[in-house]
């Protein structure tokens, strides 16, 4: 089995959010970045489990600048066999997907894994784009994946329930909670990661379809109104008359 796992870098949720250059750019000063949790905890780990049971390799791919090598090394430390970094700024979903698809076409990967979304922009777009470019089925929000020879059985989340799908042949899936359990890299993994291959490839030049025009901070909450715990009729009145939600 040759598996490809797409990994992205996002600010840690606890980071303070601010902007610069007239609110056109995210201010990354002093922000700590992490591997997107869905990519790390679920997509990568499930891919590793499959190759541990059935043999094969796990390649991780990131579209991004050299500063992203830190998350790539972490993925290698957790157990990925090798890595590809497409050397460019990830500007929009289309740029990222085009570059992933170009690399994926060079090898026949059995399964391409992504996270269900990045936790900063919550796009949930890259997976469907990659699948369309490769003309493969895409299953979003996978919570369970079993692979037997070429047959993948996947459970995915849908509104108010779940769906079980089967695909015979290569596919693209995006990983949600439940697909695997987070793994913490150990000392041996970290040492071994230093010598694993990380291939840096030039990016394909594609026109950006969507530009960021600016960031806006949401209006601040006006402050909490405290209600006497003995007077729940008052809370109900406020929810009805003031907030108009019931």
């Amino acid at each position, binding site marked *: 089995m040759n598996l490809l796992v797409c990994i992205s870098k996002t600010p840690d*949720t606890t980071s303070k959010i601010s902007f610069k250059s007239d609110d056109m750019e995210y201010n990354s000063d002093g922000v700590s970045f992490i591997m997107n949790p869905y990519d790390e905890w679920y997509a990568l780990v499930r891919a590793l489990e499959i190759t541990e049971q059935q043999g094969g390799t796990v390649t991780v791919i990131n579209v991004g600048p050299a500063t992203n090598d830190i998350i790539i090394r972490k993925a290698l430390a957790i157990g990925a066999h090798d890595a590809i970094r497409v050397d460019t700024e990830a500007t929009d979903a289309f740029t990222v997907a085009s570059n992933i698809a170009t690399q994926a076409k060079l090898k026949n990967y059995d399964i391409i894994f992504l996270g269900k979304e990045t936790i900063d*922009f919550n796009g*949930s777009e890259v997976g469907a784009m990659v699948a369309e470019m490769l003309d493969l089925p895409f*299953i979003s929000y996978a919570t369970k994946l079993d692979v037997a020879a070429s047959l993948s059985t996947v459970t995915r989340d849908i509104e108010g329930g779940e*769906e079980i799908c089967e695909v015979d042949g290569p596919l693209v899936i995006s990983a949600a909670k439940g697909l695997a359990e987070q793994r913490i890299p150990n000392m041996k993994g970290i040492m071994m990661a230093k010598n694993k291959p990380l291939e840096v490839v030039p990016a394909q030049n594609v026109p950006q379809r*969507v530009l960021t025009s600016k960031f806006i901070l949401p209006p601040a*909450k006006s402050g909490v109104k405290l*209600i006497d715990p003995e007077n729940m009729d008052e809370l109900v009145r406020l929810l009805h008359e003031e907030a108009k939600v019931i």
Partner: protein
Amino acid sequence: MSVLVYIESPKGHIKKTGYEVATYGAKLAASLGTDAIALIIGYSSEASDLSKYGITKVIHVNSTQDDAFDAQTYSHIIASVAKEQNAKVVILSHSANGKGLTGRLAIKLDAGSVSGANALPDLTNGFGVTKSVYSGKAIVKYNIQTEIKVISVMGNSIQPELNETTANVQQVSITAPTTKLKVVERKTSEGIVPLPEAELVVSAGRGMKGPENWGIIEALAKSLGATTACSRPVADADWRPHHEHVGQTGVAIRPNLYIAAGISGAIQHLAGVNNSKVIVVINKDPEAPFFKAADYGVVGDLFEVVPKLTAAIDKFKNS
């Protein structure tokens, strides 16, 4: 040109989010001076209802088949209708199925796309689309550069608005190429509104002490007609089912009302809920961080406050 709106109709029924995107498409079409056309796939007797929301034409594809969703098949159908109707904008819901379609349609139509839009486009300077990012801590405004645009709309971002038209429903049959994906089973719980679509949500956390105490939360939810949710440690400890877990790593929701009892309000929890319109926090610790994100707060013991709130709701409903 036109604006094409894809309307989901699981088991033949158009959900509230369907009427939301119909309204979104109709309003956008009005600002662009064009028509809003709705597209519905598979059996449904509700196609003509869309004319109540400003849709001027409904295209009903394969109306004798059931709705076996497959993103490859559906995106083929939507893209071919979009081309035929000369659609410049394609609108859909940012739902579980929508997430499989948006990216595919963008590629098929050479379109720029924005997923999870939170408001109508701003057409004053190019084609601006906003969405909430960074766990609700900011809003980003994108400008779509391409001639054709694909936008998926976050649930509860716009309210369905009545605007009666005389739409005709056109029956069309489209055969899509067969795909490798087979849906073996679909399990949905009947009756309760799924969390991503719920307008009222009652949620509880570790302050509940144990799963045996959830009766008071369920009673409150029942009185309100709300859906129940929980914090992550509660789902991790199997006190509650995993699909109830909201937050950064769980479901992201934006109901009109979110009531949180015994939840501290950690940033990862807030990430999934702070787009709620109104937040009520019940916590015995006045220093709990959740109060900073709340509109209404009750400092008290949830085991006393929650049943009192349920009684007050019942009294209000019966009055």
